[in-house]
């Protein structure tokens, strides 16, 4: 029985900051005492292994292959991060053979079976770890596994930067994919990231609000948060959970605001 919420972070293009934002928001929830899961379903370009500096021996790929149980794959890192709630993370394999295998190594029958295993794994996670939230990091664009991941989620968050390519692509994905999914209960929202010249103050100035309203109109979805571009975050060699480690940084303050907005979506 799935009682908690499943949230997927997605984008049309890569480099929008999905992994940074999803890891930080998930950690913020865990720090507030919620039981949180985070799975790396960016199977074509895994990054959580590097982000959390882990060297697991089993991966989500093994679950999809039917060779491992999800409970053997996820790692509880709440202890080392000293978080209030559980924070379990499932990594996907960065080995080129495994990425290639996901991309072209299987027939349709396997793909469907893998989707089933994914769904079963999700249900096991909610039951076994009493999860309040399960976060799914996805591959950018319209790809087989990004669509499958989106279909597993209740709340979909489309990250985008303020560029014509992002705006056009995001609008297209809303028409092609998100509207279909929303007919069956999914809700989708926009998150603006790396916004140049935005005010780091968590209370949006009037001109930024007007800009967001216009963007909502053009893209056709509600903006649930906007995160300014911070050079010290952007060019940090290894940004690691700013929201937990540097809670007073303006980036963390905006992230906390975003996390609260997401929580209020129900």
């Amino acid at each position: 029985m799935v009682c908690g919420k499943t949230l997927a972070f997605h984008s049309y293009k890569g480099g929008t900051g999905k992994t940074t934002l999803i890891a930080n928001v998930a950690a913020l929830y865990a720090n507030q005492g919620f039981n949180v899961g985070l799975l790396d379903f960016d199977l074509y370009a895994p990054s959580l292994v590097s982000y959390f500096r882990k060297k697991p021996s089993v991966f989500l790929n093994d679950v999809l292959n039917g060779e491992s149980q999800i409970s053997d794959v996820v790692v509880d890192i709440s202890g080392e991060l000293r978080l209030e709630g559980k924070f379990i993370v499932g990594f996907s394999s960065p080995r080129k053979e495994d990425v290639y295998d996901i991309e072209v190594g299987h027939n349709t029958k396997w793909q469907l079976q893998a989707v089933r295993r994914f769904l079963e794994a999700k249900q096991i996670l909610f039951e076994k770890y009493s999860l309040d939230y399960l976060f799914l990091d996805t591959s950018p664009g319209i790809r087989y596994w990004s669509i499958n991941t989106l279909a597993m989620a209740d709340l979909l968050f489309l990250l985008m930067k303020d560029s014509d390519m992002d705006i056009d692509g995001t609008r297209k994905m809303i028409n092609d994919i998100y509207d279909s999914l929303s007919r069956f209960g999914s809700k989708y929202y926009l998150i603006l990231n790396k916004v140049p010249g935005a005010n780091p103050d968590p209370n949006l100035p009037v001109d930024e609000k007007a800009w967001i309203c216009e963007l909502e109109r053009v893209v056709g979805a509600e903006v649930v948060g906007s995160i300014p571009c911070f050079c010290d975050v952007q060019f940090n060699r290894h940004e690691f959970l700013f929201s937990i480690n540097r809670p007073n940084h303006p980036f963390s303050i905006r992230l906390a605001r975003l996390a609260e907005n997401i929580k209020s979506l129900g």
Partner: protein
Amino acid sequence: MFICHKKSSGKDFAEHLKAGLEELGYHSFLDSKDIPKVTDGRLEWIEIRDQAIRESNTFILIITPGFDLSQELKNELKQARALSNKQFIYFRHRDLGRKIIVDLENEKVDLGRQEQVSFETKEELLRLAHGILLKLSPLRDFNKAESIKLTKVTNEKVTALNAKVECNCEMCSKPIKGQSYVELIDEKQHNFDCKDCALTYRKLKSVYGDEFQ
């Protein structure tokens, strides 16, 4: 259900709503889509429209700018209100204020006193309508599937099956224990372990189409 709208400002909303509801298995009537282009003049057009109003059990009014200036729309609303077999759903575009009085000649209807649902985009309108319709026609017993089919109101309806079914979930493949979810898709029965599986199946099928089988 009958969808009432003003052509100049509500056509896009109405057509998107009808297409979406039909895809979800709800039969709806929209004059621009359901009255054949070749009708025997205006009288026949009115006859078909009026029959649809009489036979519908739900009257959806899409309130968009200038809707109260349309005489046809007022005729439809007037006729529907005179019948006692309808539930009314008022969707109001957010550009408009809540207080709207419509002069139907024999009565002035204060829509501000009616329960209204506000919307902005056509996607939002469809989402809201679907949510309301699910509440108005809750999950049905599978034993009544035949009658559901006959009414052609729904052929894609999630139904709760209380009887034990000995089969595997068509989404996650787990054996179904106890209550299962039965979904009729294209008039074919599909069994699911839980609501989550049924919804995931529907989502994937909506994206992949028939390839997802």
